[in-house]
């Protein structure tokens, strides 16, 4: 069932993977500038929200609850990154 779902939305998942992978490469290449790493991660989280919501919209299943969920997961990711960089490395 999960496999079927992935196959149905294969193009979407591949595109999301590419976005996240490119973001990963960019963040790693900025390894000596943690503030810039945080900034790029925030932009990446924003892309993740937009991409996810766009996908839901195209499948006619976009609802307020879903929008809030994507924003909360992205915010959680940003909060964890901020926790690591601010608390751990003192940026």
């Amino acid at each position, binding site marked *: *069932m*999960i496999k079927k*779902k*992935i196959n149905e*939305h294969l193009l979407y*998942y591949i595109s*999301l*993977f590419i976005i*996240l992978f490119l*973001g*990963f490469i960019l*963040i*790693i290449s900025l*390894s*000596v*500038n*943690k*503030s810039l*790493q945080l900034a790029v*991660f925030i932009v*990446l*989280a924003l892309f*993740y929200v937009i991409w*996810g919501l766009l*996908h*839901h919209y195209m499948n006619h*299943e976009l*609802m307020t*609850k*879903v929008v*809030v*969920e*994507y924003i*909360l*997961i*992205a*915010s*959680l*990711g940003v*909060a*964890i*990154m*901020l*926790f*690591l*960089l*601010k*608390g*751990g*490395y*003192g*940026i």
Partner: protein
Amino acid sequence: MKDFMRHLFFPHVSNNYRPKLLHHKTLLIVTLIIFFAGFSLSAIRNTFPSVLGTFSNISNQQLLLLTNEKRQENGLPPLTLNSELDSAALAKANNMFTEDYWAHDSPDGKTPWYFIKQAGYNYVYAGENLARGFTTPSDVVNAWMASPEHRQNMLSPNYTNVGFAVETGKLTGEDTVLVVEMFGSTTLAGSTQNELGSQNNNTKEVSSASSPTPPVVTENSVPKSGTVLDASKTPIPSVKPLIDSASFSSDIALFIVSIFILTLILDMIVIERKKVVRIVGHNIDHIMFLSLLLILILFMIRGVII
């Protein structure tokens, strides 16, 4: 307890078939707690540096021991610790913190050789390896050995002396542990003291690890004054904190991200099996995003060399 755990992590009738951890209210609360915890940790770092801060277990002696181990494994004679090269390495480290750069050459053009000369070491060959963000000496040495250019310095038969500096401070906006390793030799490779006597006007430089410079003949006289540059400008007082903030925060971050990923996977599998219809986002999206974060944390806590 069992019911609480099931309620928190497992889709069940009690949580409307969505783990409580993934409910909007819980997500918001967890996010806010983590957000403020980051600022609290930062405040603790600044207020109580003896409790929470940046430190490493790297010492000059351990670095010397491991460097010589690698040389002996490759059939090379061990290097001897040289106090002038130690001074040069310390001066370089302090200069990096003071002028805030992460490079072999300073923004105003000071090369590694400048610090070596200032320390009074009359080199024929010299080299430099830099590392930051490592917590153990073996990690530093292994990282250098894994890089062809740094490995070349570590295993060069041209060098006879080595000096180290391990300093903690704020570099390019982050608290870090900086390791400087300076190699040198006051004699030409393979030459005897007599041969050196006739050639000691030639000063040869070999590369710092990341910016190889072909051997060049430079000036004849080497300044001997000023053994240590800016030695008084140690950026952070050498108070060893109880807890290393980088390890502490990364362990917590990894734990939290892992918990969320596992909960999302569990939720996805159970819901698929029970064929429950819900209006929620795609778990696979969230898993991909949080997995990226997990991998990023693992990469970010590793040290960097140049």
